[in-house]
């Protein structure tokens, strides 16, 4: 008879939550950040810088409203410039939040408990930034409500066969459901803040937002069910949103866009860039707020692994794009991929390959995954790489039109850059406000990770 093979224990990099914490200590630690911690100079400085950068958006949008979209670098044939590049980039960043909060909940990955609130907030803010671009790109943003089906005096209805309308429904649904999911998750923690705060106005604000939550078992039972249902609904939603975004490209007949690989490759790219962004934000957060005991090395290690895995899927996508171009035997497809690699934008393409395919390979090494500073630098490189990917997809496919007589180049103007950096400012401003006024870590889920939190500890096998 064969001897049963001894499997080695799973190698874990540290626990999900450091030892020595109790129910009271985790609650007080996280609520203390909101209620007790003095607003530090660092926070004020960071907030002011972000808020100043946000003013770029205001100035650029004002000038856009005065002059029209001609102030941007777009032209014919490149009608989709920075607006669409940034839209796709921001939407993608949001996807990691939903992945962490919904998909990892369904997969019972309890390590996500410490990071999901922050990641979800990041989703909301990223979608806000993303939504800005198509609205501004319409040229007459004050008429953006025309995108929605409503009875109007013109007797017109939107075209339901257009991916651009699908986008409207997908992105607005995504924002609504993310906001609802986020708020539902906040309710028990808001109750904790209400009960812990000493100031009257804080009690009123948090009490009002908590809606009188009292932690009743009958409530928890429905609450858990609703959370699970929302997670179950958000999971296909997040996949559908970037699929629909990729349809904006794939349903057209432009060489370089019209490929079936786009939906899965876009979704993987979205999660890739999203996890990179979570790392870029989470590493400074845990450092400045001293949260190393709840956002442990295990979290960073796991997130780095997801980044690597999705990065490999993205690499496969690039390979397939090149292969499709070659294998299609279509003059335009072949030219497009050749032009992308050797044409006027070749620099962007090869930088993108360097950032998105070569750099993440370092994540194979545990020493790099557990080196916080190097990991942070890598995550920034991946963010830049993913932005370049969107730039390459949008611009190189358009700038060489079918007829050489309509060929042109696209270069962003000052106003393009100001709009883009302005949304970065908006994003960071929101993040700064969020970590100051709300608990950036889900306290009640953190409690469930504590030893002794379960009635019966699972029997070790």
């Amino acid at each position, binding site marked *: 008879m064969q001897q049963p093979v001894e499997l080695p224990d799973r190698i874990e990099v540290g626990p999900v939550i450091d030892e020595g914490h*109790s*129910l*009271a200590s985790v*609650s007080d630690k996280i609520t203390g950040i909101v209620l007790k911690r003095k607003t530090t100079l660092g926070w004020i400085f960071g907030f002011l810088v972000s808020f100043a950068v946000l003013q770029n958006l205001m100035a650029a949008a004002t000038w856009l409203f005065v002059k029209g979209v001609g102030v941007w670098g777009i032209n014919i044939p490149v009608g989709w410039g920075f607006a669409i590049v940034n839209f796709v980039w921001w939407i993608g960043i949001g996807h990691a939040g939903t992945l962490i909060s919904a998909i990892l909940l369904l997969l019972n990955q309890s390590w996500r408990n410490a990071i999901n609130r922050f990641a979800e907030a990041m989703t909301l803010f990223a979608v806000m930034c993303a939504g800005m671009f198509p609205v501004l790109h319409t040229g007459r943003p004050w008429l953006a409500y025309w995108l929605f*089906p409503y009875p109007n005096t013109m*007797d017109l*209805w*939107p*075209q*339901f*066969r257009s*991916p651009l309308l*699908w986008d409207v*429904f*997908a992105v607005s*649904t995504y924002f*609504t*459901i993310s906001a*609802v*999911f986020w708020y539902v998750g906040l309710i*028990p923690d808001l*109750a*904790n803040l*209400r*009960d*812990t705060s000493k100031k009257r106005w804080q009690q009123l604000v948090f*009490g*009002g937002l908590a*809606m*009188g*939550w*009292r*932690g*009743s*078992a*009958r*409530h*928890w*039972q*429905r*609450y*858990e*069910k*609703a959370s699970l*249902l*929302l997670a179950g*609904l*958000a999971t*296909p*939603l997040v996949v*559908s949103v970037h699929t*629909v975004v990729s349809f904006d490209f794939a349903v057209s007949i432009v060489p370089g866009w019209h490929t079936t690989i786009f939906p899965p490759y876009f979704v993987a790219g979205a999660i890739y860039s999203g996890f990179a962004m979570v790392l870029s934000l989470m590493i400074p957060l845990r450092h400045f707020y001293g949260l190393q005991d709840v956002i442990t090395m295990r979290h960073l290690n796991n997130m780095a692994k997801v980044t690597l895995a999705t990065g490999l899927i993205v690499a496969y996508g690039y390979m397939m794009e090149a292969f499709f171009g070659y294998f299609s035997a279509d003059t335009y497809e072949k030219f497009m991929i050749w032009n992308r690699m050797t044409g006027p934008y070749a620099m962007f393409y090869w930088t993108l390959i360097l950032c998105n395919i070569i750099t993440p390979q370092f994540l194979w090494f545990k020493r790099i995954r557990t080196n916080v500073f190097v990991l942070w630098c890598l995550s920034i490189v991946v963010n830049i790489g993913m932005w370049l990917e969107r730039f390459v997809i949008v611009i190189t496919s358009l700038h060489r039109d079918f007829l050489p007589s309509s060929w042109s180049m696209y270069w962003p103007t000052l106003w393009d850059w100001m709009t883009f950096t302005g949304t970065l400012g908006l994003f960071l401003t929101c993040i700064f406000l969020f970590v100051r006024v709300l608990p950036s870590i889900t306290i*009640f*889920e953190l*409690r*469930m990770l504590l030893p002794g*939190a*379960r*009635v*019966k500890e699972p029997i070790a096998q």
Partner: protein
Amino acid sequence: MSTHVVEYLHPIYGIMAEFETPGELVEAARRTREAGYRKFDAYSPYPLHELDEAMDLHDNRVSLATLVGGLLGCAGGFGLATWCAAVAFPLNIAGRPLISVPMFIPITFECTILLAGLTAAISMIMMNGLPSPYHPVFNVERFANASRNKFFLCIESEDTKFDREDTARFLETLQPEEISEVAR
């Protein structure tokens, strides 16, 4: 362990016992139910699935409402697309069918998720009776810890088996940290 039994002129909401650990609360809830009490509730700072069993909780109305919401969203989304494209604003493009089902799927899907998700959240909040700005349990000062680190069980005076002295004595047998009467 100390007991505060305050005499109130008005009838009370119930009697509340405080526990240190989740295990004690679940055990207390089980024994309270076995003792024949029905109108009681347990309060914990995080969900305890064992309580569902101990208190015999099985409310599936949130799931049902979500299903109905999802189906309405599905029918509504598809109906909207079909009505707009085929009735309100038909466009004949090279004789292609007006009701082009595959092209309506993305919007049907998004509407399904939107309505189902909103129904899940709203029905949960409404069935829980929230928002409720006032609730008697908050009259117990120590109840502020229910959202932090303590576990509570409250037997309500509306229970047919409730008796101010007997119930307090019964709660004593569960060995809580503290017992308090809850003002209405």
